[in-house]
């Protein structure tokens, strides 16, 4: 059952990362990968909230491991950083890597705090 829930979450999360990335990119023309930052921050916020509440194992598998896990990515982030460095956009590369870590950690903390406040 857990395997099916993880699979279902991932089957939604991975295409949603692709679609979000496209949608964000159509709204700007800078080389900075805002789309990937968006999914990584949103996924960290949601997983932070899931981790804060005593969620059922089924919810953790579906939303946490499956959906948030497949929505967010390190492989895309690292490749983008490599390519920005290659393009000579060192400032963008550093901002992408360090900014993602700081924003992700902030989003996870915010999700955790919000879920705590809402559930009491």
């Amino acid at each position, binding site marked *: 059952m*857990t*395997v099916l829930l*993880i*699979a279902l*979450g*991932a*089957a*939604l*999360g*991975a295409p949603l*990362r*692709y*679609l979000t*990335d*496209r949608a964000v*990119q*159509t709204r700007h023309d800078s*080389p900075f*990968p805002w*789309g*990937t930052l968006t999914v*990584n921050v949103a*996924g*960290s916020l*949601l*997983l*932070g909230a899931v*981790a804060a509440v005593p969620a059922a194992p089924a919810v953790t*598998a579906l939303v946490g*491991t*499956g959906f*948030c*896990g*497949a*929505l*967010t*990515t*390190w*492989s*895309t*982030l*690292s*490749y*983008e*950083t*490599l*390519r*920005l460095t290659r*393009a*000579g*956009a060192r400032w963008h590369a550093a901002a992408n*890597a*360090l900014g993602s*870590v700081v924003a*992700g*950690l902030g*989003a*996870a*903390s915010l999700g*955790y705090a919000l879920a705590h406040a809402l559930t009491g």
Partner: protein
Amino acid sequence: MTPPEFRVDPDVDLHVPADRAELTAHPATVLGAIAAGGVLGALARAGIQAAFPHPPTGFPWATFGINVTGCLLIGALMAVLGARPAHPLVRPFLGVGVLGGFTTFSAYAVDAQRAVAAGAAGTALAYLAATLVGALLAVQVGDAAAARLLRRRAAR
């Protein structure tokens, strides 16, 4: 600064004409390939994480290894795809799906946050830095190793 076809984003880069066109041409096939790959990647990640669990104050070795390995493989995959023609679904399936679903940023951020909350700020900081450095080194190594193999093959 960058030529119009210079790819930054391996998932989808709208500066690349083929990426721009792929969703309108075959939406169900592309999204299906991404979903199928994502399921395989996520299940592999979940299996490894379940085999090597870590306490809230411990170093998440499983996720660290998963993320660094995934970065190594995306570097190699994109180098191969940049050098030789491939089926249009290879990048969506393997890159966006399998490797995107295998690696995870949310577990990275949340595990670090939980370690801080559990009083292990040192472990959290070490984990944050080790993954960042490991991921960036791995993608470079994957890219360089694949490029070298491709050159050796071409020279033969």
